[in-house]
């Protein structure tokens, strides 16, 4: 990984230098591509409708569209007029005037219903009449009294056109479902294939658009304005109105956030850099990124929706961070006297990899939304990720050329380093001095937050997004209280046969079911009204029986039912199509409910579904309407969020592990990312902040962003720890270099999210508050928790024999769960020691001992497991030194299953990776092996690949522990400690104890402390002889133990050893691997 980082740094340096050399061409190319992309921006649409929350192929949406096609729009504009004088001549005159004005001025009206034209069904002279309630229009108070009597006694009117107490009346405006559809229907009489055309339109974008809906609502609002001072109170609500006004607020909010974000970012950049380029360049880059992302939305036909309103300020806040990291280093380098090009190359080289990694993790956090069933959330993930990606690309391609134009006087950067350095140093000192305290406190916070998580409540309450003082919210709540609801749940039952309704038994069950649905209730939901074709039948039946109340019942026979519906249909009204289809096979049941939190509907909907399934097991029943869309949105949101949290966590963890090259360290590095999110969500639970779709995003967004700081921290810590081997010093240097841009980006990001506190919408203020808080907590975690974790992982301790205290320590560690990595530190406790000159000199003598230029031997490898089962392998082994490089080739001769397997290793000058190839006879080809990890077992033995290669003395500290005799030969016992974690990782040993014979400088015994699994590996050379005047091990025993328990043992016996025979180079080729050695 270190090599990879070096190569990456070099790549970014070379790239920036190349871009600077071709800066005009680069700028031309980038801007050309940008303008090609941006030319599509004008096509970007806006859609704040409820349906836009679901993908166009979502089953719930398809079901809803099918309903709209059959029965029309259920997205209503609801006007409620409250007065104590409703049943007066003056009021009816005014109401009539308002009704007519609305009908005349509001576009896209499909139907308008009020007391003026409410259906009045009555019988006279054995005939059925279906007229408007005010037909003829009343002219005297007596007429009004008669209307009052009829209105209040008609069950169908209650809560639809008049409240139960007669104080509130309503005007219900139903807009057309599809303007194009209506045009097509008009042409139905002329064209044979109109039905097909109509069908086709329902599957395309023929529905009433948000703009058309807005036109209608605005027209209603305008008409109502002139009636507000007439002595009664007018309220406006209905989903159509709510959606329209929320769209307006969305547009205002988006513009406001964007301005605030720009302003805030610019002010901050001015304060931090005090340079024109320090402000202009980042702003330009994020602006281009934002426009590119929005253009991509336009190109792909994705409109701007409610949740995507956070996109602009998000991209702005996140994107600017990339420039800040590079600019901070650029100015710093410039201050130290570097040329512009060198400073740019240094800055991009040093931060390039980190910027790419942070870009990828942020994108991964966002892309985790892309599978969401909630369409705008998925789009936010896709295009937010794309925006971040654009920011990354523009940073790399535009920043170097732009900076190359800038003429900055050296030594005057305006940086406030001195102001921050003492603070950062203090933080480093504190976090490295009290790591255990920090871990314990962090754990206690974590525990407290976990207790808050079960208190979280999901919510999708569009109306309550608005502030309590907002007229729309007040009106809606007022209408819900007086008319018992303002949104509908629709139930469509399919009898599956023509004239299926003409069934007295079915109709009786339908009527009974409607009554039972009306009686259902949950703590939050009670139906204001339930109505269906059964009510029409009862109304008709009563009218045909001299309007006697006793006959407000269902007809008793199939024939009578068919006859009465026929009469109703032929009375001049088209109301029947609101209740059934032309075949009389479908039944629509409408349930009026209050406009509340979508989550609260769930219990009620489940009760309704259970009731219907029980009462009508033979029928196909669909529950639909806007309420179902709301419910589906929140259900899908929760489901998708759960998955995306797992995906984001898994992906980012994997990136961390791969980047740090160690599962445990990578996983531990996730702790500073995870804890802030748990704390934030726990806090939301304790503060009873409802978890809306937006709040669900907090975790993923915060994880994607906060991981950036952790990457910068770990990236720099590894770098400095590799140089110094001192964790505390490495933390200090890390905070002094990376800490500053981490603070800056955190402030910018936090500002980017805190601007949502200025929103008029409650859910956005919560979202901004929590996300900003999570990012601040992430910085705190990276400044305190991450150093504490690395301190217990990497800090040095003096060597001392372990005693019973160690056990006590382990017990303490166990109970202080927060200090999880402390346990690891115990394993590391003995891995430190000062380098001893005498010990080093001995080891140099060992290293320099002549062991021949080349060597051939036959080797027998015995593998013995803990049950004493033995496996024996025979190999032919060749080695040859070639300058600083060493070649070795091994050919397996037996047993049969490994016969002809061959292994070739080229141990290249010790600073480089080795080349390794393996020939497997079954594969019939030579396979290259990626060889950075040398800790793997060599062919099932107790030896690792690391044991097969020489080690560089500079990577270890050596100390003489004592002197002993081994088989009568005096030996030094030397402790070898890897200087850096990277060496531990590469070779797999945290420490080694070596027994060096004094007479010949041969390591005749060694004990290796294996990093994985706390195992010990004992190497012993029981047979050592001089062959060709070279000390040679004829037998090597390697035993792997855990505590006292032997896990496995390997015995290597060598014979036919020949040195310096001038082995030809062609033995060490892949050709020889294929051919074998026979």
């Amino acid at each position, binding site marked *: 990984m270190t090599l990879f980082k070096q190569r990456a740094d070099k790549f970014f340096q070379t790239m920036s230098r190349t871009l600077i050399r071709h800066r005009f061409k680069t700028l031309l190319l980038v801007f050309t591509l940008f303008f090609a992309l941006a030319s599509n921006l004008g096509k970007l649409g806006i859609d704040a409708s409820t349906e836009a929350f679901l993908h166009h192929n979502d089953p719930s949406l398809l079901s809803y569209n099918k309903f709209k096609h059959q029965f029309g729009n259920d997205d209503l504009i609801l006007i409620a007029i409250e007065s104590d004088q409703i049943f007066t001549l003056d009021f009816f005159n005014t109401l009539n005037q308002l009704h007519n004005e609305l009908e005349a001025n509001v576009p896209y009206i499909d139907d308008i219903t009020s007391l003026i034209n409410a259906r009045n069904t009555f019988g006279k002279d054995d005939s059925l009449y279906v007229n408007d309630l005010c037909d003829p229009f009343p002219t005297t108070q007596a007429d009004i009294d008669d209307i009052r009597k009829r209105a209040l006694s008609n069950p169908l009117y209650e809560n639809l056109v008049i409240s139960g107490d007669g104080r509130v009346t309503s005007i219900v405006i139903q807009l057309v479902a599809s303007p194009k559809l209506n045009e097509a229907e008009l042409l139905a009489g002329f064209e044979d294939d109109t039905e097909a055309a109509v069908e086709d339109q329902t599957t395309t974008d023929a529905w009433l658009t948000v703009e058309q809906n807005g036109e209608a609502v605005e027209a209603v609002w305008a008409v109502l304005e002139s009636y507000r001072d007439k002595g009664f109170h007018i309220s406006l609500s209905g989903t159509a109105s709510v959606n329209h006004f929320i769209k307006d607020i969305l547009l205002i909010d988006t513009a406001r956030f964007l301005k605030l974000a720009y302003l805030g970012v610019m002010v901050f950049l001015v304060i931090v850099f005090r340079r024109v380029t320090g402000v202009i360049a980042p702003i330009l880059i994020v602006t281009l990124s934002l426009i590119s992302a929005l253009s991509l939305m336009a190109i792909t036909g994705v409109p701007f929706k409610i949740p995507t309103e956070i996109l602009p300020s998000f991209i702005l806040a996140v994107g600017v961070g990339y420039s800040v990291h590079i600019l901070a280093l650029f100015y710093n380098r410039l201050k130290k006297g570097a040329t512009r090009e060198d400073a740019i190359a240094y800055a991009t080289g040093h931060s390039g990899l980190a910027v790419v990694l942070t870009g990828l993790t942020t994108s991964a956090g966002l892309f985790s939304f892309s599978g969401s069933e909630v369409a705008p959330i998925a789009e936010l993930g896709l295009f937010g990720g794309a925006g971040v990606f654009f920011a990354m690309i523009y940073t790399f391609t535009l920043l170097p050329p732009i900076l190359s134009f800038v003429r900055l006087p050296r030594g005057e950067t305006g940086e406030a380093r001195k102001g921050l350095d003492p603070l950062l140093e203090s933080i480093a000192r504190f976090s490295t001095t009290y790591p255990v305290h920090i871990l314990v406190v962090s754990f206690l916070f974590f525990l407290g937050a976990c207790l808050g998580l079960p208190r*979280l409540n999901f919510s999708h309450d569009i109306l309550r997004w608005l502030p309590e003082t907002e007229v729309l919210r007040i009106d809606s709540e007022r209408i819900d209280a007086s008319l018992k609801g303002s949104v509908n749940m629709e139930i469509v039952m399919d009898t599956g046969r023509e004239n299926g309704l003409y069934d007295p038994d079915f109709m009786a069950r339908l009527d009974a079911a409607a009554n039972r649905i009306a009686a259902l209730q949950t703590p939050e939901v009670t139906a204001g009204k339930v109505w269906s074709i059964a009510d029409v039948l009862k109304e008709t039946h009563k009218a045909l029986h001299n309007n006697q109340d006793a006959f407000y019942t269902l007809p008793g026979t199939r024939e009578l039912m068919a006859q009465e519906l026929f009469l109703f249909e032929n009375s001049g009204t088209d109301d029947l199509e609101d209740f059934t289809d032309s075949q009389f096979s479908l039944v629509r049941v409408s349930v009026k409910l209050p406009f509340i939190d979508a989550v609260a509907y769930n219990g009620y909907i489940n009760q309704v579904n259970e009731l219907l399934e029980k009462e009508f097991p033979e029928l196909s029943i669909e529950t639909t309407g806007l309420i179902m869309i709301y419910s589906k949105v929140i259900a899908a949101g929760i489901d998708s969020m759960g998955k995306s*949290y797992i995906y984001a966590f898994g992906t980012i963890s994997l990136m961390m592990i791969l980047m740090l090259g160690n599962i445990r360290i990578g996983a531990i590095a996730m702790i500073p990312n995870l804890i802030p999110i748990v704390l934030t969500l726990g806090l939301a639970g304790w503060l009873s902040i409802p978890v809306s779709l937006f709040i669900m995003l907090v975790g993923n967004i915060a994880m994607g962003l906060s991981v950036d700081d952790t990457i910068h921290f770990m990236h720099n810590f590894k770098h400095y720890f590799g140089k110094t081997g001192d964790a505390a010093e490495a933390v200090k240097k890390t905070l002094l270099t990376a800490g500053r841009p981490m603070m800056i980006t955190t402030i910018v990001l936090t500002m980017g999210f805190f601007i949502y506190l200025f929103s008029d919408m409650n859910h956005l203020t919560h979202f901004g508050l929590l996300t900003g808080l999570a990012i601040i907590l992430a910085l705190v975690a990276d400044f305190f928790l991450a150093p504490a974790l690395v301190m217990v992982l990497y800090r040095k301790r003096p060597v001392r024999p372990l005693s019973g205290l160690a056990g006590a320590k382990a017990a303490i560690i166990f109970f202080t769960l927060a200090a999880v990595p402390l346990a690891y530190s115990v394993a590391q406790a003995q891995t430190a020691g000062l380098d001893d000159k005498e010990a080093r000199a001995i080891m140099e003598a060992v290293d320099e001992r002549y062991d021949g230029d080349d060597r051939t031997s036959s080797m027998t490898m015995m593998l013995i497991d803990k049950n004493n089962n033995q496996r024996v392998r025979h190999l032919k082994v060749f080695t040859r030194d070639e300058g600083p490089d060493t070649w070795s080739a091994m050919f397996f001769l037996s047993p049969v*299953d490994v016969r002809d397997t061959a292994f070739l290793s080229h141990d290249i000058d010790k600073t480089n990776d080795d080349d390794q190839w393996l020939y497997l006879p079954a594969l019939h080809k030579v396979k290259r*092996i990626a060889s950075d990890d040398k800790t793997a*077992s060599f062919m099932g033995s107790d030896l690792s690949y690391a044991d097969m290669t020489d080690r560089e003395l500079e990577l270890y500290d050596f100390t003489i522990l004592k002197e002993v005799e081994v088989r009568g030969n005096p030996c030094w*016992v030397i402790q070898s400690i890897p200087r850096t974690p990277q060496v531990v990782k590469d070779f797999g040993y945290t420490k080694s104890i070596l027994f060096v014979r004094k007479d010949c400088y041969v390591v005749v015994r060694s004990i290796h402390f294996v990093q994985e699994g706390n195992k010990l590996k004992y190497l012993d050379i029981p047979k050592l002889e001089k062959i060709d005047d070279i000390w040679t091990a004829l037998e090597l025993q390697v035993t792997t133990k855990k505590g006292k328990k032997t896990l496995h043992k390997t*015995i290597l016996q060598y014979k036919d050893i020949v040195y310096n025979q001038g082995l030809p180079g062609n033995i060490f080729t892949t050709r020889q691997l294929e051919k074998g050695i026979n």
Partner: protein
Amino acid sequence: MNIPVSGKSWACSFWAHFFPGLVIGFCIILLAGTLANALASAGETDLDLLLEEFETQDTVAGIETPVSAPSETPEWIDIYGSLSASSVIRTDPGSRDRLAELEAELTLKARVDPGWDWHFFTDTLASHDLAPALGDHFEDPYRSSVERELEVREMWIRKSLTPWLDLKLGRQIVAWGSSEVFRLVDVVNPTDQREFAMTDIEDIRLGQTMTRMDMYTGPWNLTLLMVHGDRTPRTPEQGSDFYLWDAPLPDLVDTDTGLDRPGFAGALTGRFTGWDAGLYLARVNDDTPYTFQDNQGIDRLKYPKINMAGLTLAKTFGNILLKSEMAFLDGLKFSQAPEREFQGLDVLAGIEYSGFTDTTITLEMVNQHIFSLDADVANALERMKKNHVESALRLTRDFKNDTIHLTVVAGFMGATGQLGTFQRAEIEVDWSDTVYLKFGGILYHNGDSNLFEKIQDNDRIFFSICKDFSLSGM
């Protein structure tokens, strides 16, 4: 739509169990590992105690150190092989016979090294499957194809003519490319396609009679091949679960290769520090046959001769091996347009990660592009796509000092697996140096492709036991 009874209780349940569970589970995983460290560390004794272990090593834990290794004497002739018994069970309850295979197999290999740098090698396989005799629904020709089998897999003689020139004659296998799963430039040998995805790529190549000449200089190796054999791929016989057609296939027309009409191939490969590269050219038979009508209007089956030009590149970055292959193919033919020849470009990208101890994870993705596949032809070529994407994920891990080997392979046809997927997992246990047990299973998942529609119910589990032997010293 299934909506929970109460949003609040649902929410509580979700957060109370899921998210904290995730977090706490994460901590427990960390804790388990670190606690093990801590306890083990706590159990460490001091240096003297550690040193004492050397004195007791020979007797601890009942392990007895062998006095000496068995003798190993080079022989000029070496005969060895294996005996195995294997069984394959269909898992689909609707299968006519659950037992798909109950086979005894003998593999016999002989290596003769008479001296003067001459080498002779033969690898022969004989098997007998009892499943057809025990089952009720094994029908010819499938029955006879599996009941008994005798196959000379390899038989070649090799001679190094000079230090830089080798010659190899006879039936042999030539494996090209760096891919673990896909064959792009690896076009020389025909393949055994009888059981899709049941075996790894190493077991599907069929020996072909060839003359092979290798020249070496520095890191370079130039291989020239003359293909004399006329072997064609082994495809499923009618009656097999993997037979994809509804009717018997037409008679096969002789291939365009043979002793008198050899195929040719050549490769220039280089192995360098940190990377390998290869350039490949071949004119050989394609592995995919097509049908056409001969002069008499009779349907025929033929393997077309194709030209291939390919490139491979493999590069290591630490524990990561990046692999890429590209093969340009000319002369492709399809049954739906037998009169036309097509050109194709296959591109592969792969990554192999070996940073986890004793574990290798490989992800490979290939895109097969067919040129000139205009709309008319695409319609005619049912389900033929201009671009066809396949990918595979492979994980291997060794446990217990290489005595247990786990292999998991997942294949995805189509960019998102929409054309079908399969997963195969197997565990091989080395019971001893010469006895191995294997157990595994394979699952096929349907997709929008003819292949997976046919094989979707072919899920299987398999067992085998194998005993190696050596007759050295004859």
